[in-house]
């Protein structure tokens, strides 16, 4: 983005304070443009013909430093790039790294379909949502255009996920494109030998293309420049991912250099970057070591500027940390991580259902909520206002106390005596030390649940309903 204060953006807006954008004033809207929480197209008046020039000027000023590239179509489209900063605390990172897992054209059909479905369906619940992976990379290992086309068709039939077509042979890429052109696949890759033919394909089919210049940033830049001059800026840069030794260090620095140059304003190199942690399989024979190393390399380049990557291991012990490190880096540091305090109903609780106490830290709340709901336990779940602190830290820091719990109960309008048949509260195991105080403050029976909410189902079987004394 070429401007950095709301005032600079304001100068281009219609200045009518009409409110169409959902903001009271143009100035307020301008502030959202600068922190990228609103899109210029939400100001409908500026889209009118008479403001055309202003719109275009402002749109150009607001464009992120790193170009955005779109792969795929429809609901499953993958946007990559679009960043404006080198450190997440300076704003936030946009468009999280896309993970593409490979299939190859010498796989037998049953394995192929199974693997594609596994990739498509892989999911892990986290803070109210499922973490999932994004794409399928189809590699030509046969070198045979027909074989490649057949496998690409199968993949297209099996999944809506965006795809990457991988081969250095333009004939092979063309065969793949013919059967997947409506899906806007990413081509992988143009290099110093095939770039002319691959550029022609990218232009003819109007699809994004990866430029591959292993450890040669001069070449990478001049290819990017040439492609732009030929008419496409839908480019992804692959400076090579060398999995070991000094070359890995070089790879790391290549990523830093390319992104730094882009953010600092060198438009010729300001494109999304691709990492290929898959190369770890060339350095390790044993599959566990290879998977581990691939995950490690993937983590490095998720943190440092990889926008898209090709991976091989679909072991959960590789995919889970990959998904979580990506979430870690791309979570918007400006967003609060709390839920509204109060009494939540999970499932369809009745007066006989248990009443569980937890905190309003989003991570805690959603973890507990999903542990309960996925095991079909009907209950009341009480999110106490701990100012967004988890159970253990809130007990230690004094945000989760008997008084707070009592206050939470009163404010929610829930009455333990009349709304339940048992007048019982279940505290988290990590809040066990509050038991006596909570009994005194609320007059309710207090039971201590397990330390980890994942164990609530087993605990319930043994302990609920409570024995009458």
């Amino acid at each position: 983005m070429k401007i950095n204060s709301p005032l600079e953006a304001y100068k281009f807006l219609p200045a009518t304070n009409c409110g169409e954008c959902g903001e009271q004033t143009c100035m307020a809207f301008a502030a959202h443009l600068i922190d990228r929480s609103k899109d210029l197209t939400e100001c409908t008046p500026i889209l009118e013909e008479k403001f055309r020039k202003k719109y275009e000027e402002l749109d150009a000023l607001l464009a992120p430093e790193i170009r955005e590239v779109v792969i795929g179509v429809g609901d499953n489209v993958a946007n990559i790039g679009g960043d404006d900063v080198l450190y997440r605390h300076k704003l936030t990172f946009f468009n999280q790294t896309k993970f593409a897992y490979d299939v190859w054209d010498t796989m037998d059909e049953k394995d192929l379909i199974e693997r594609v479905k596994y990739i498509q369906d892989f999911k892990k619940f986290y803070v109210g949502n499922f973490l999932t992976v994004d794409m399928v990379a189809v590699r030509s290992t046969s070198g045979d255009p027909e074989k490649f086309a057949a496998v690409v068709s199968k993949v297209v039939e099996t999944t809506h996920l965006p795809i990457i077509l991988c081969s250095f042979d333009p004939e092979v890429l063309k065969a793949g494109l013919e059967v997947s052109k409506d899906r806007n696949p990413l081509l992988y890759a143009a290099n110093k030998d095939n770039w002319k033919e691959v550029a022609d394909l990218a232009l003819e089919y109007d699809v994004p293309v990866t430029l591959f210049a292993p450890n040669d940033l001069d070449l990478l830049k001049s290819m990017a420049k040439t492609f732009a001059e030929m008419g496409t800026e839908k480019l992804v840069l692959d400076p090579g991912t060398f999995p070991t030794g000094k070359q890995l260090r070089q790879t790391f620095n290549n990523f830093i250099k390319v992104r730094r140059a882009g953010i600092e304003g060198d438009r010729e190199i300001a494109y999304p970057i691709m990492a290929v942690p898959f190369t770890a399989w060339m350095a390790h024979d044993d599959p566990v070591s290879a998977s581990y190393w691939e995950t490690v390399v993937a983590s490095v380049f998720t943190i440092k500027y990889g926008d898209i990557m090709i991976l091989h291991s679909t072991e959960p012990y590789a995919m889970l940390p990959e998904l979580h490190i990506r979430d870690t880096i791309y979570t918007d540091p400006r967003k609060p991580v709390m839920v509204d305090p109060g009494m939540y109903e999970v499932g369809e609780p009745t007066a006989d259902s248990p009443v569980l106490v937890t905190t309003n830290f989003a991570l805690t709340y959603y973890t507990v909520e999903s542990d309960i709901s996925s095991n079909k336990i009907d209950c009341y779940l009480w999110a106490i206002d701990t100012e967004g602190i988890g159970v253990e830290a809130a007990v230690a820091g004094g945000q989760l106390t008997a008084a707070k719990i009592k206050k939470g109960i009163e404010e929610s309008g829930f009455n333990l005596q009349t709304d339940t048949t048992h007048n019982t509260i279940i505290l988290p195991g990590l809040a066990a030390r509050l038991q006596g105080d909570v009994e005194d403050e609320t007059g309710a029976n207090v039971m201590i649940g397990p330390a980890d909410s994942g164990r609530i189902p087993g605990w319930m079987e043994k302990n609920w309903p409570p024995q009458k004394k």
Partner: protein
Amino acid sequence: SRFEVSKVDNWKNKIQEVTLGATSADGGSRKSTVTLGGENALPYYFDAEMPHRNYVTVDVFDMPIGMAKAVKGNYEDVINDPAEWAKKVVRDFNADMVTIHLISTDPLIKDTPAKEAAKVVEDVLQAVDVPIVIGGSGNPEKDPGVLEKAAEVAEGERVLLASASLNLDYERIAKAAIDHGHVVLSWTQLEINAQKELNRKLMKQCNVPRDSIIMDPTTAALGYGLDYAYTNMERIRLAGLMGDDELTFPMSSGTTNAWGAREAWMVSSPLKQDSDWGPREYRGPIWEIVTGLALSLAGNDMFMMMHPTSVQVLKEITQTLYG
């Protein structure tokens, strides 16, 4: 067209160098020492050479404690003997250093007297010749006394005392370090201003020399607040490089915290909708590795760890990036 990029021009300040351990030449009995810090850029960046690699100190406890199954399997034979435990991590698991946690001193655990706990420190110093870290139980009332006694018996060995924090009598810990020639771990909870405050107090109020402070800005596990921990460390390191001399110290991470994440230790997901989590024997170590690795990229210098595979892989990746 040629590719060009400039070096960062406002990284003008060097991170303080801090040495742990003392050899006989310096009045100690360690065979080797470890020096942290000295960076003039973010880790592994081309902007400036990184003078020292990352180091790993492996956790040892003065009594058996609860551990994830995958971790425990490695220590069953030594769990009742801190000295043997320390030997094992150096000999078999390539630990650069050893951390002895005196957790039995906690009044709520065994309330071991400081004097008795100090004997364990002596045993560990006897058993291994690498630099050591001495940790209390985390009890703010008890820790100052425990660490004072430990500092006394470790006189001259230049250990790292873990830790001074804002919620205990940090002056006593600072004084113990100064009196016996040790280094203080300045520990705060994921808050850059608290870190500045504590460092300032250690320097100005307690007169701890700059070469005797290491920071622990707190490590939260992958999926459990690593986003805070990562950014907190990155901000601290960037501020240091740009000249905030209350933050130009090397950093240490309690990477073992990663084992608190259920993904690291649970047999399988408690959620029916989740895809299969696969074997936990492989999930746990990689959780610890990725947690540490992320922080290494944020500027962390030293890692407190537990699983041998995690130690091995983290050392391999950080040393590869280091060059």
